[in-house]
């Protein structure tokens, strides 16, 4: 017996002006199936999701939901018809309570007033369906962790008993442990017969959680099938249209002298949280590390373990409660971002949109912001020199854009990240502090950034990488240190680590 089809898309097309976002997309999902939708940035995933959720209408093609023609007029209509969407950026009103957020737009009312008892029961039911019945309904959404906020968001989507649930990059801001919990939630929903479209750049995740997959490339379905029959290499080849034989290049490099050292540093956020020293007394959690020229040093750990804090403290964006940061040939006292750039240290923020880039300024301005004064004399900026410098990196890193005067917000995430990284190259930095350098970007750009980092090490630069994506750290780094609750607990050569070891160290379960 063939299983019934819950959602079937046939030959969908959509153009924006002269741009053909979708050329021909087809997709079929059974009830209780988790379906991974895979594709590089710009492959048409977002457009497809917008059509499914009713934000756009397709130009051609058909959509069927449980055998009926499905043509949502707007996102609300889509929700009523049984298609709910969870966006990558969480959409919660942070000042309202969990309950209010779950029921937002679908409040139970009695004579125009919110019916508290019914509302509470409905919110509770939705949470229990997710296996999170214990969540405090009266707590403000902003006081929950990101993972809990996501649960609230999913609960909201479940309120109207959707047949199809679309999740866009649900794990991009989750830790490994929270990802596991999310997967348990997804399995629960699958068992209840909900069809789930799961969009993610993390192929390993897709292959773990999804039953079937569909790969989009340039607005077309280029492959689909059962996940258990597909290898990661096969998926990557479908997505990029080329063989990615080795995602993690190993340009040979020899670590040299120590150029950066952190000595018994206590991070400000963890100063008050003592840990047991093993002799009955308790001490403050500390971090010590040494990074050599030509070495790639990875910092692993759960989100909130202090990896970003440590990187920011090295760069002078945060202060240390105790301990010190030593740089070769530099004054340890001069620890502001301004001095760090002068000392040859560059920092790539994990938060491209809010901190890393000036979105409404040009590529050239973004790329050269640390060294404006070098493009002319007496405080004058010669724009042709500035643009020439930027254009060099645009070409070298194959940034897709009109020219270096284009506004950065018009670029895709991967290309934005290349510009953010090029700022460190142009400066040029000797020590690279990279916080989640490949978050939310497509495989092609990722491969390019790995290649670049490897070449930097070969050229004798020191690189410190913070990442939540373990295959990346294990593939790229020479040395990996793991942080847990503000403490840098273990530093070993890469060969001595496995994913399981790292997770154990990161969760403090040794």
């Amino acid at each position: 017996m063939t299983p019934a089809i819950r959602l079937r898309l046939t030959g969908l097309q959509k153009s924006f002006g002269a741009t053909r976002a979708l050329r021909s997309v087809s997709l079929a999902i059974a009830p209780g199936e988790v379906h991974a939708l895979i594709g590089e940035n710009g492959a048409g995933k977002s457009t497809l999701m917008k059509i499914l959720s009713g934000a756009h209408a397709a130009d051609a093609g058909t959509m069927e939901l449980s055998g009926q023609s499905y043509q949502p007029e707007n996102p609300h209509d889509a929700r009523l018809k049984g298609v709910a969407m969870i966006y990558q950026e969480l959409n919660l009103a942070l000042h309202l309570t969990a309950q209010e957020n779950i029921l937002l737009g679908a409040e139970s009312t009695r004579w125009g007033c919110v019916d508290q008892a019914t509302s509470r029961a409905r919110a509770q039911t939705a949470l229990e369906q997710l296996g999170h019945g214990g969540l405090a309904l009266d707590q403000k959404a902003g006081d929950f962790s990101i993972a809990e906020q996501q649960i609230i968001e999913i609960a909201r989507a479940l309120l109207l008993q959707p047949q199809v649930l679309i999740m866009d990059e649900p794990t991009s801001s989750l830790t490994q442990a929270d990802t596991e919990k999310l997967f348990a939630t997804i399995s629960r929903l699958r068992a209840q017969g909900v069809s789930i479209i799961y969009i993610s750049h993390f192929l390993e995740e897709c292959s773990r959680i999804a039953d079937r997959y569909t790969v989009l490339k340039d607005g077309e379905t280029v492959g689909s099938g059962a996940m258990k029959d597909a290898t990661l290499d096969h998926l990557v080849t479908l997505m990029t249209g080329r063989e990615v034989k080795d995602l993690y290049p190993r340009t040979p490099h020899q670590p040299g002298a120590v150029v950066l050292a952190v000595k018994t540093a206590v991070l400000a956020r963890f100063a008050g949280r003592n840990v047991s020293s093993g002799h009955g007394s308790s001490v403050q959690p500390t971090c010590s590390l040494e990074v050599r020229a030509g070495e790639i040093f990875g910092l692993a750990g759960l989100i909130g373990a202090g990896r970003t804090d440590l990187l920011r403290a090295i760069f002078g964006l945060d202060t240390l409660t105790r301990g010190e940061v030593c740089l070769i040939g530099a004054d340890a006292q001069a620890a502001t971002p301004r001095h760090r750039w002068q000392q040859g240290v560059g920092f790539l923020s994990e938060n491209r949109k809010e901190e890393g880039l000036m979105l409404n300024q040009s590529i050239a301005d973004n790329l050269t912001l640390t060294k404006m004064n070098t493009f002319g004399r007496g405080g004058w900026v010669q724009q042709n020199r500035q643009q020439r410098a930027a254009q060099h990196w645009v070409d070298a890193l194959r940034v897709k854009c009109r020219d270096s005067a284009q506004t950065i917000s018009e670029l895709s995430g991967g290309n934005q990240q290349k510009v953010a990284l090029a700022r460190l190259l142009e400066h040029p930095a000797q020590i690279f502090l990279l916080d989640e350098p490949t978050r939310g970007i497509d495989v092609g750009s990722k491969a390019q950034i790995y290649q670049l980092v490897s070449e930097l090490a070969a050229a004798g630069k020191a690189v410190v990488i913070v990442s939540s994506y373990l295959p990346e750290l294990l593939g790229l780094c020479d040395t990996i240190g793991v942080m847990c609750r503000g403490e840098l607990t273990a530093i070993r050569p890469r060969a001595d680590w496995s994913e399981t070891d790292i997770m154990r160290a990161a969760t403090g379960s040794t």
Partner: protein
Amino acid sequence: MHATLKTILAKSGPFIGLILVIAFFSLPTETREYFLTYNNFKIIFTQTVIVAIGALGMTMIIVSGGIDLSVGSTIALTSVVGALLIQHGWGPIAVLLAVIASGGLIGLLNGSAIAGLRMTPFIITLGTLGVARGSAKWLADNQTVNYDSSPLNSWMTTANPFSLTLPTGVWVALVLALLTSLLLRHTVFGRHIFALGSNEATARLCGIATKRLKILIYVLAGCFFGLAGLFQLSRLRQGDPTVAVGLELDIIAAVIIGGASLSGGVGTILGSMIGALIMAVLRNGSQQMGWPTYFQEIIIGLVIIVAVFLDRLRQGRAAA
């Protein structure tokens, strides 16, 4: 080709607005005779000077992501200071420098408070608005400060309708506009102002001394406001502590009509100057049409809203 056309439209938006407003007042029979004459434009230019010079400073502040509500009060205070110094027998150059310096001093207070106390510019300058206005009245003993005569008085005059030359104030505003435009577009200081307004976190991360930069911006803008105060004094020929109430709103409106964004990172001096001219042309035209002042106020209010709305529409289309 299509893209270039869009860029031209996006860049010349305020200019098209100015031409439309001028055309509007050139057509009716009541104004046709006089409106498009050189003499009338001499008057319009002269009437624009104070708002225009204020808009130079305000553009820097708004591009940096800030705002200054104390401009009207600063102009009143500095013009009172100027009048008192003339009373005490200071020469015109000394008065000029002292008035600019006192404007810069108020800017220093604003900037230091904003950067040092990490408070929003809106609140700080709302406070300074009261402090400066009160100080002006205190200094002036709550009355106008009169003086016999000063060479200053000729800087804003259009008294001789047959003279072809523009008053000093217009030339000063033009030259300063040119210099400030170069400053914003082509210097490290100017590019850092855009960086600060576009994303303060990025500016800090990239090693820009954001506190010092903020203070510098408010000081420099304060100097412009002081100069505007001097021209206010030259126009009235007396120091009046109750003058220029609410002028900051006209100045902010000029900058916004000129295409700047209140969220920072966007704005041009040329746009702001055209914005200032649009408002002056509207005033001048309305007067010649014999419209009552309340009607002018309504029209200018609507123009601000329409201008910003059109700007957003244009930006949206440019991005698509």
